[in-house]
């Protein structure tokens, strides 16, 4: 902004040119470091796996092949994990956005019985938690271990999201609801017919936060799920990586060594390709959702 003013008033001085060039280079380097790994991973997956294994791929793909992608489709449990992940991301996001908005709406009502107490209790959970193991024990006692619900139910009310939505709802003019009251609309009618439709931007922002969190979460599976039918894609990848971690240190000789090398090559190809497959959805939607995120951060920043 300041630079725009400078430009209008006087031509760029040599110092300005130098400054712009230097900054431009520094930022270009950082931006390169941010994207190159993703590009590199991608070219590795379409290159000859043997060349990848010895680190021969640098900037361009070599020995183009789609073998890795064919192999990855044969990975056990992949389809099921994809299904679980998608269902979880969609259903978890929708239900959590709704529940957070629902609670937010009633917290905008100053006359709620015991409002101060309830609001404080809910907000306090952002800064205080019983801890990982007590939560684990509690969820176990509730029978959520090894069920699909562990992905959905504990996170139904997101307190931070609730505050974001509440802040946004409070900026609505009160007359909107007052006129609806005169027409005899109850709380639910007002929530669904008037308030929620006007909160689409913040609901979209919150949903995006949630969907990425759902997509990226692997620790819930690690902690609560042992049934492979309930694995998510991220967890599948995590397991794959953990296997590689453990086997790469094993020493073998002779024919076994040849076989082992072939297996390692194959495993590397699958691991890289699986990584690409797992992150692809995020990469594809990222350009479209980025600006929503920025908005979300700014609302959050205002509220602290």
């Amino acid at each position, binding site marked *: *902004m*300041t630079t725009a*003013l*400078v430009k209008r*008033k006087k031509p760029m001085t040599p110092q300005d040119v130098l*400054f*712009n060039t230097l*900054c431009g280079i*520094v*930022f*270009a380097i*950082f*931006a390169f*470091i941010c*994207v190159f*790994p993703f590009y590199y*991973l991608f070219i590795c997956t379409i290159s000859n796996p043997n060349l990848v294994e010895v*680190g021969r791929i*640098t900037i361009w793909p070599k020995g183009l092949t789609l073998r890795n992608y064919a192999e990855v489709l044969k990975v056990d449990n992949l389809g099921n994990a994809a299904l679980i992940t998608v269902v979880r991301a969609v259903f978890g996001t929708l239900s959590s956005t709704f529940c957070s908005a629902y*609670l937010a709406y*009633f917290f*905008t009502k*100053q*006359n*709620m019985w015991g*409002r101060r107490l*309830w609001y404080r*209790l809910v*907000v306090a*959970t952002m*800064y*205080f938690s*019983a*801890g*990982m*193991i*007590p*939560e*684990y*024990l*509690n*969820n176990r006692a509730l029978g959520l271990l090894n069920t699909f619900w562990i992905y959905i139910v504990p996170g*139904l*009310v997101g307190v931070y999201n609730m505050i974001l939505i509440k802040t946004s709802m*409070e900026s*609505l003019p009160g007359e909107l609801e*007052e006129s609806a*009251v005169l027409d005899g609309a109850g*709380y639910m009618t007002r929530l669904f017919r008037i308030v929620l439709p006007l909160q689409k931007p913040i609901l979209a922002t919150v949903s995006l936060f949630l969907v990425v969190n759902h997509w990226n979460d692997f*620790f819930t599976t690690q902690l609560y799920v042992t049934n492979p039918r309930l694995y998510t894609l*991220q967890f599948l*990848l*995590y397991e794959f*990586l953990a296997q*590689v971690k453990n086997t790469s240190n094993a020493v073998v000789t002779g024919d076994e060594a040849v076989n082992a090398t072939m297996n390692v090559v194959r495993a590397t190809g699958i691991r890289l390709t699986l990584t690409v497959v*797992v*992150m692809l959805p995020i*990469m594809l939607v990222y350009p479209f959702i980025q600006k929503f995120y920025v908005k979300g*951060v700014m609302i959050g*920043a205002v509220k602290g």
Partner: protein
Amino acid sequence: MQISGRTSVGQMRRKPKHKWDDYKVFLLAFPAIALVLLFRYAPLWGWSFALFQYKPGKALLDCKYVGLQNFSFLFSNPVMRRNLVRVLTNTFGIHLLGYLFTPLPMLFAIFLSEMKSKRYQKLVQTVTTLPNFISWVIIYSLVNSFFSSSGVATNLLKSLGLVEEGFNLMTSGDHVWLRMVLLQQWKGLGWSAIIYFAAISGISQDMFEAAMIDGANRIQRIWYITIPSLIPTYFVLLIMSIGNFLNTGVDQYLTFGNALNKQYIEVLDLYVYNLGIGSGQISFSVAVGIMKSVVALVLFSSANLASKKIRGESVF
């Protein structure tokens, strides 16, 4: 977080109404409040596990009641004490090292917003926030493909003669803290800068114009106007992160951890997980967790108090 927003909707209550309406709002909200109580407060009963010698598979009340022995054992037993000291050292080390980088997002935002081309700004911003949306599992896989023993970066370093044959950064126990912090910077720098971009666009343009009329150059404008305007934001974020000091999360350390670097990578949260779920020492693990929760609460309260003293308003 103070109770705010006396909106006009809320004002409706001012005319005396049926008290019934107050209860009705509460009852409608209650299912959602109950979820918070059930998943955030109910786990507190799990704290009682710290008072027993809990064995998995047994009912808690069939286990031996030991009172506060678990807590004292954590400090009196040499192995337990050493572990606790180690994971606390790691947690503090990684965090304190991370604090050295806290001015970076601010500088990033300042210099990027000084760039002439708006399109270049947008492009850099978009590209640098991307890693924030990628999970640690994927980041592990990315780093692995560069720095494992046959990775492309390792090969490059080898050919430059900087490292020896058989070098594998992924399993190395050297500079673990620094590497973890650098990865956090890679992931979060662009994202953390967004808040400063917002703050910069909120600075009044009159100040810059006045400064330019007075002949201030770019560096002077940054030093005397932009940075002082951003310092409050910087301190709020710093105070909040102090409140979060012990909450490192586990994702990054779980994915990057292995037998060879465990010594330096195991942070408090990961230790609680490893102790409780990995080795089934639920009682000890809960005891560690309780201490963590209490210390975290104290940290939050002090951070909040500090914020009240310095800025006259609370952060939380």
